[in-house]
């Protein structure tokens, strides 16, 4: 069942190649919807306390002890759902706008979905590393072929202050950064398997490696190899060098799913791999990781409210949100970890519509530069209300599920030390500032001549409404997600908690 979820998108992507140009988009959309249907089928049969379910285990390379084993549990089920939900609006949005070479575009987009789903469902360490690497390749081509050079005088859209970005240099920087991390992770993964086997039968399955345990000495360096890969992917504060350029050059629908879902694989990796497998190292480096997390929060927020390009404002706000999630995970408390999982889903749900709205704004004002923008709400009340809900969810207003996530993270942090929670809560105040600034500078203030504030078209509304609807429904009862994921998250964090105490 899980294999069908992983490979359906790719299958439809390939079918899209054969179908005439015009239908490629709708074949892709149909494929994404089917994947969502399968995911909901899995959710229906899912029992929160059942631990690892729907397990499929087929030997893939016996020579190396690598087997194609999949499984889903509380931690990954809602992230899988988030992935399948997030891809549909992106595909529909680009279907409506039409792209050059559509067949290849949708093949790459769906291949990205396949790889991400694979990463969430893989229970074999090496399969996880493989899908982790595979995720970046389609987006490398998506950003490279359909992205655009930015900045400089020939680009009317961009303010000179932001500097020139060529698509090739941006995508190269992105893929080199990400793959440096994942190559280190490959070495770390193999070392983990080999050391934990120590003479015994070599296997990469996560459960066995966790059961066998790793000696302290090697845990430390393997921890940092994994942490490097995940921190680059998020991106976390010191390793986000690649993010500004690639966010400015990328096409917005692809960027929406990239920023919403791929960054979650990094955080998911900490929960699934690092915490259970290297508890001692995690406990030893807890303070460093918390410092990095809080630094990401403050740095991300500071950048978010100074940047003038909307894409970068959203990008750095994701850095801040991911900082919260990492802080939640490394608080080693069940409320913190559960808050982190809830926040992962919420952030994903918020970022996809946010980027699509930025795309719509760019169509209305000609550029994503905040400076010359304003007053779009004049003749577009529905568009303004949708953007209002999304930006309120971004700053985690207490009526939203984001608030519950962030509140539990702060509660988890508080158990570690009150100081962490207080510094992180500065991030909450800054979040209010940058989210509102983003909303005001685009929607309010007088309307400049260049921009026209036309109402959201019905088709665009149909793309956004489902996601915003889910945000509102979750706002009323976040317990849906918490109930499903708590037992699994608790067991993931339990190992480290014992060591930490």
């Amino acid at each position, binding site marked *: 069942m899980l294999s069908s979820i992983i490979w359906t998108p790719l299958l439809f992507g390939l079918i899209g190649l054969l179908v005439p140009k015009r239908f490629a988009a709708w074949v892709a959309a149909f494929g994404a919807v089917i994947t969502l249907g399968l995911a909901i089928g899995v959710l229906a049969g899912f029992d929160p306390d059942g631990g690892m379910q729907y397990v499929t285990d087929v030997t893939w390379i016996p020579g190396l002890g690598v087997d194609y084993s999949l499984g889903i549990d509380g931690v990954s089920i809602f992230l899988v759902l988030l992935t399948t939900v997030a891809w549909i609006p992106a595909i529909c949005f680009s279907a409506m706008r039409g792209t050059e070479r559509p067949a290849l575009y949708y093949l790459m987009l769906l291949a990205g979905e396949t790889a991400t789903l694979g990463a969430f469902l893989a229970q074999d360490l090496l399969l996880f590393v493989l899908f982790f690497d595979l995720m970046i390749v389609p987006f490398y081509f998506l950003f490279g072929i359909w992205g655009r050079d930015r900045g400089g005088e020939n680009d009317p859209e961009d303010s000179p202050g932001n500097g020139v970005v060529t698509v090739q240099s941006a995508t190269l920087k992105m893929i080199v950064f990400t793959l440096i991390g994942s190559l280190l992770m490959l070495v770390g993964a193999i070392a983990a398997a080999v050391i934990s086997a120590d003479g015994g039968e070599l296997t990469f399955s996560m459960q066995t490696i966790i059961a066998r345990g790793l000696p302290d000495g090697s845990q430390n360096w393997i921890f940092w190899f994994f942490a490097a890969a995940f921190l680059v992917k998020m991106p976390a504060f010191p390793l986000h060098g690649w993010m500004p350029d690639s966010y400015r050059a990328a096409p917005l629908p692809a960027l929406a799913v990239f920023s919403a879902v791929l960054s979650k694989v990094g955080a998911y990796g900490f929960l699934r791999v690092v915490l259970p497998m290297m508890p001692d190292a995690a406990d030893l480096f807890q303070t460093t990781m918390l410092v990095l997390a809080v630094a990401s929060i403050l740095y991300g927020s500071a950048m978010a409210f*100074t940047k003038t390009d909307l894409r970068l404002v959203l990008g750095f706000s994701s850095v801040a949100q991911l900082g919260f999630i990492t802080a939640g995970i490394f608080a080693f408390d*069940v409320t913190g970890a559960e808050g982190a999982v809830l926040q992962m889903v919420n952030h994903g749900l918020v970022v996809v519509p946010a980027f699509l709205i930025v795309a719509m704004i760019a169509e209305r004002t000609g550029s994503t530069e905040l400076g010359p923008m304003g007053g779009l709400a004049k003749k577009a009340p529905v568009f303004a209300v949708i953007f209002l809900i999304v930006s309120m969810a971004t700053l985690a207003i207490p009526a939203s599920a984001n*608030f519950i996530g962030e509140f539990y993270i702060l509660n988890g942090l508080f158990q570690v030390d009150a100081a962490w929670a207080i510094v992180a809560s500065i991030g909450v105040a800054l979040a209010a500032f940058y989210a509102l*600034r983003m909303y005001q500078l685009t929607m309010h203030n007088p309307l400049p001549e260049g921009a026209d504030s036309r109402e959201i078209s019905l088709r665009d509304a149909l793309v956004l409404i489902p996601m915003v609807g889910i945000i509102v429904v979750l706002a009323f009862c976040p317990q849906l997600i918490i109930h499903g994921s708590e037992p699994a998250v608790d067991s993931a964090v339990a190992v480290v908690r014992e060591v930490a105490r």
Partner: protein
Amino acid sequence: MTATWAWLVLLFPLLGSMTIGLTFRVLPERTAGLVGIAAIVAAFVCGILALIGLQGEPHESRHVASSLWEYASVGGFTIDLGIYVDPLSIFMVLVVTGVSSLIHIYSYSYMKSDQGYHRFFSYLNFFVFSMLVLVLAGNFIMLIVGWALVGFASYALISYWYRRNTATKAGMKAFVINVVGDIGLYIAAILIFKNLGSVDYTAVFEKAPEVFSVNEWEIVAICLCLLVGAFAKSAQMPFHTWLADAMEGPTPVSSLIHAATMVTAGVYLIARCFPLFELAPTAADIAAWVGLATLLIAGTIAIAVTDLKRIIAYSTMSQIGYMFVAVGIGGYSAGMFHLMTHAFFKALLFMAAGSIISAMANMQDIDKMKGFRKAMPFTAAMLIIGALALSGFPGTSGWFSKDEIIDFAHFRGGMYDWMWIGMLIGAFMTAIYSFRIIFRILPGPACKEAEYLEQHGHVIHGEPKNPATGQLEDTEVGYPGEEHHIAEQAGGMKFAMGVLGVLALIGGLVQIPGVSEVITHFLEPTFEDSIYAGMHPSVSQAWTGLAEGALISIAGIATAWLLYIKRPDLPARFRSRFSAVYTLCVNKWYGDQVIDFLIVNPVKAFGRFCNGVFERGVINGATAGVAGITRSAGAAVRDMQSGLLRGYAVLMLFGILAIVVYFLIRSI
């Protein structure tokens, strides 16, 4: 039954807000207004029914807690969507729904010409809904939810005319300060859960005395965090700067949010959590002292400022200061009584001011307003009633409620006597600035707007200017309509102001010391296990206090008469002699500048530093550095490849020598 009525109280405003919001293209303007009013009136009726239901309960079990479903629960930290109905919350529900239904009627005709009519009523209903959530919340998380939704609604309504830069900036300032307050509540809720294991009111208030000893640092920390939230919401001293700018919103908004309901949320919070504050007397005293400081400072500013709405705003701030002192020193029922009466006369004052401002074609500067007595008799009468009640003129509701607080402070004695004296000075100042408005606007020769109104019978058509900046504005969506309406010509406004005028006058009779202490008895079940339950001044002390209050208010009115009618040159002379003090007060004690200097500018500088120096220097520098190194190494290897065959042979020779030497060393 009371629980279902309470849920209905919540449901109606939400339904009203949703229907107006979603059907804004279909529903004509008039019906939208009516739907809004109907929703709030329905809530008020349900509030009454809940009150009746509650009174039916026996004395000691006069509180009901009910919850719909479990909102979220992780590892013991369970939050359910629950409400808690008891006399205090019903009292607040009635005050909120009562005053806001009157304000809805007022704004039904006041906002007629504005293009965002639907949006206004939808936000207004949403505001009342969130205020009711705050008041009826059953646990601290629901309190936070209500708290933040009220903050959001106030942001939405302050920047209602959103295409005005000044309005959006004011909205942003209000919202961010509000979020800072929310964070105070977050940390308080976390601390409460950490020590008491639950966030429900009933559980927390029962376990608190067992877990904490008096003035233990944990409980003081909790109370201080709660106070941070209270100060931010009620615009008390350190967090007060947003209230003056909040006057950018339409006048009904100022009267509803920034006079009657939202700013009193802080007072309600302290009253609700009195068991915690009684365990942490230092925190309660801090609340009282801050209340006193705000009271005095706001009073001085109100005397100096010339913008009509800002004078009333600062007067609100000082009256809220009174309430903070009251709940800070334990006079809960006195505080709540003053909250109620203040809601009546302050809303009335704002409405009257609104009517005058629309007569002045949106000009708010009182120096330009003269002689409206003849042009607008009804508004003038209402203005006078409001001013009388505000300054505590004997007989009016303000007299009873304010002096009850002052007596209680005097009754408590000891250090609270200082507060008693401070409050007396405050009362004197209140009388001065409230009658400064009356004597500057009503008497004397009619200014050109008033004259125009007398002759033509309708408001002058000045081109719409932004009161704060004076720039010209168009009247499209997001800007105030061409003109608004004065009470004389709008039935809705007249009705609302009339009702409030009556309430302002006779409101005090509810709580005549020794005769009818209705409020104290009504609130008794809530505060029965408070340490101050039994303590209140004897009837004779109360009446002597009332007499002192009357004397002070009459003295204040007399000085105002002296300054602004008899010897109008005196204020100018004072201004020149005490110029330092005057400039301090006119610039609102440099509150904005201090906050900017301490918090806003450093944060912005940190942002610029990160963006400029750090991002370009360190992050891009590092990546460019690494790329540069590899590229230069590449160039080095390429240059080594000289193409000269003999060069290769040399390198091979060195290679062979190196290996041979290596092995020779190893073999020794």
